[in-house]
């Protein structure tokens, strides 16, 4: 017989094989463990944003529908003191507007009406959103009318940042920015979730603006090519329904 010869279908491998393989496997497992450590430790930290998945609650407040749906929460319901304006978004990758139009109870324009809804809280970085988890059935009650919200004065501004989809960014997914999340953000915005311009470099502190066109309507398909990339935008700043907004001409967006 020649040197040690390994035959897989025999019950035992030669001792020399066993020793060599044991050594190789132990070395590899140590290397792999170190690599795992490097991968996890050096990756970007996740945000502390929260999606209260599976914890549906009822919320009451004043509903604004145009140009994007916001519920001004009654006191004590917002996770942030001083910000009661919850942006409403749909289930999955959809906006809330179609649900509000399709809801069974409403008659006429919903804007400025007191409502009770059921939904799931999403919040982070000082902003609040509510997912209408039950779709059309989320709108529970409508009461008397209150005066419509005020639109603030406009200021011109140019800024750098990234277009994100607020539903994912403020808590549903992590990471919810940049290249890895681009396709998802495109789907969300295409599905009617209001696009939000996040001003500031990645990792710094941010300001957020809902993006509208120059006639005051939500932007959608026109801005999809820019989603998830570093861009420069210019437009006029104001505040609508408690959310800062930026009205822009999408043709003037520039890649950074």
């Amino acid at each position, binding site marked *: *017989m*020649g*040197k040690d*010869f*390994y*035959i*897989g*279908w*025999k*019950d*035992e*491998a030669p001792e*020399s*094989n066993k020793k*060599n*393989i044991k050594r*190789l*496997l132990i070395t*590899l*497992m140590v290397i*792999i*463990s170190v*690599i*795992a*450590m*490097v*991968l*996890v*430790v*050096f*990756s*970007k*930290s*996740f*945000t*502390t944003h929260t*999606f209260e998945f599976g914890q549906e609650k009822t919320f009451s407040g004043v509903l604004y529908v145009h140009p994007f749906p916001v519920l001004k929460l009654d006191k004590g319901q917002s996770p942030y003191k001083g910000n009661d304006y919850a942006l409403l978004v749909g*289930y*999955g*990758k*959809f906006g809330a507007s179609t649900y509000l139009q399709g809801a069974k109870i409403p008659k006429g324009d919903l804007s400025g009406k007191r409502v009770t809804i059921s939904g799931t809280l999403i919040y982070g970085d000082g902003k609040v959103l509510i997912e209408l988890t039950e779709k059309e059935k989320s709108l529970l009650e409508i009461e008397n009318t209150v005066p419509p919200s005020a639109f603030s004065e406009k200021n011109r501004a140019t800024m750098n940042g990234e277009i994100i989809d607020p539903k994912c960014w403020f808590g549903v*997914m*992590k*990471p919810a*920015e*940049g*290249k*890895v*999340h*681009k*396709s*998802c953000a*495109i*789907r*969300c915005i*295409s*599905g009617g979730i209001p696009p939000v311009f996040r001003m500031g470099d990645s990792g710094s502190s941010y300001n957020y603006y809902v993006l509208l066109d120059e006639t005051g309507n939500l932007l959608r398909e026109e801005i999809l*090519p820019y989603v*998830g*990339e570093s861009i420069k935008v210019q437009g006029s700043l104001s505040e609508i329904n408690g959310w800062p907004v930026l009205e822009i001409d999408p043709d003037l967006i520039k890649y950074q």
Partner: protein
Amino acid sequence: MGVEYAGVLWNKQKKQYDKIMAFAILWMVILFVVLHLVFQPDFTAETLIIRTSAFVAFTLLNFILIIGPLARLQPAFLPLLYNRRHLGVTMFFFAAIHGIFSIIQFHALGNINPIVSVFLSNTKYEAISEFPFQVLGFFALIILFLMAITSHDFWLKNLSPKFWKGLHMMVYLAYTLIVLHVATGILQYENNLLYWMLLIGSFGLVAGLHLASAWKERKWRKTQVYQLEKDNFFEVATVKEIPDNCGKGIWIADQNIAIFKYNNCLSAVNNVCRHQMGPLAEGQVVEGCITCPWHGYQYQPEDGQSPPPFHEKLETYQLAVLNGKIWVNPDPMPEGTYVAPIKITD
């Protein structure tokens, strides 16, 4: 169809192989989860699943790919090769978890079909850093899927070893796609030099080991120059240089030939195993049969046939011995032809 196959047996070693594999994978999963709990506690469950399965799948794939050249360069590692298909199928399982979860997470519950969304959400196909990297992963997953479902020896037989080997060579295409998937995907977000070094390092290791084993093979072929010829017999070796029950590989006139010395006899058969083209000359004669070093397929040296109930057949070659020198006729005899073994006389 009635194709007969006889599977490689399920034995103690194979069970041990699987046990070690399961343990190593379990370790990787637990380690990855614990590291997240400690260092990245704000993760979401979906991201943890997507990243852990990607890490396990990519690590296994790299390992699977280095086994081949490693065993060629250092036969001590041959046992790793024996049960590689279980590693392959397990790797596919983790890759599928990663791919399916990614599609659900990033593409489902939207206004177009999730699979369509993989292709049409990000449409910057002309770009490099903005390239829709998911598409690369998608095609890689399809290849891995085809390999996983055809991994059984039944398909090896049915599709013919050549076709099967061709299909399974696509793993290199899949690997390349996955490296690009990572480079144009997560590394455009986690733009950390360390990660680039790890990705390039693992690609370099796989490519480097393959080049090294190919280089060894080429160097060996270059040494295969035989000029002493008589009646189409070439002098190729000495009787002494082949240890008992061992073989020697010869490359002559485009024939890959294995000469074996056993029971004071010499026989020659084609060097390419009919199972998955393993190098028979690197095997040994065990209980009267040439035994392939890769998965242990056996052939009778005198006629190149597998012992019953198996049906594999190799071409055989005519030998002659003169003054302690071995001569071979490189014209192959039809597969399974009996050629009387040459008795060695001192």
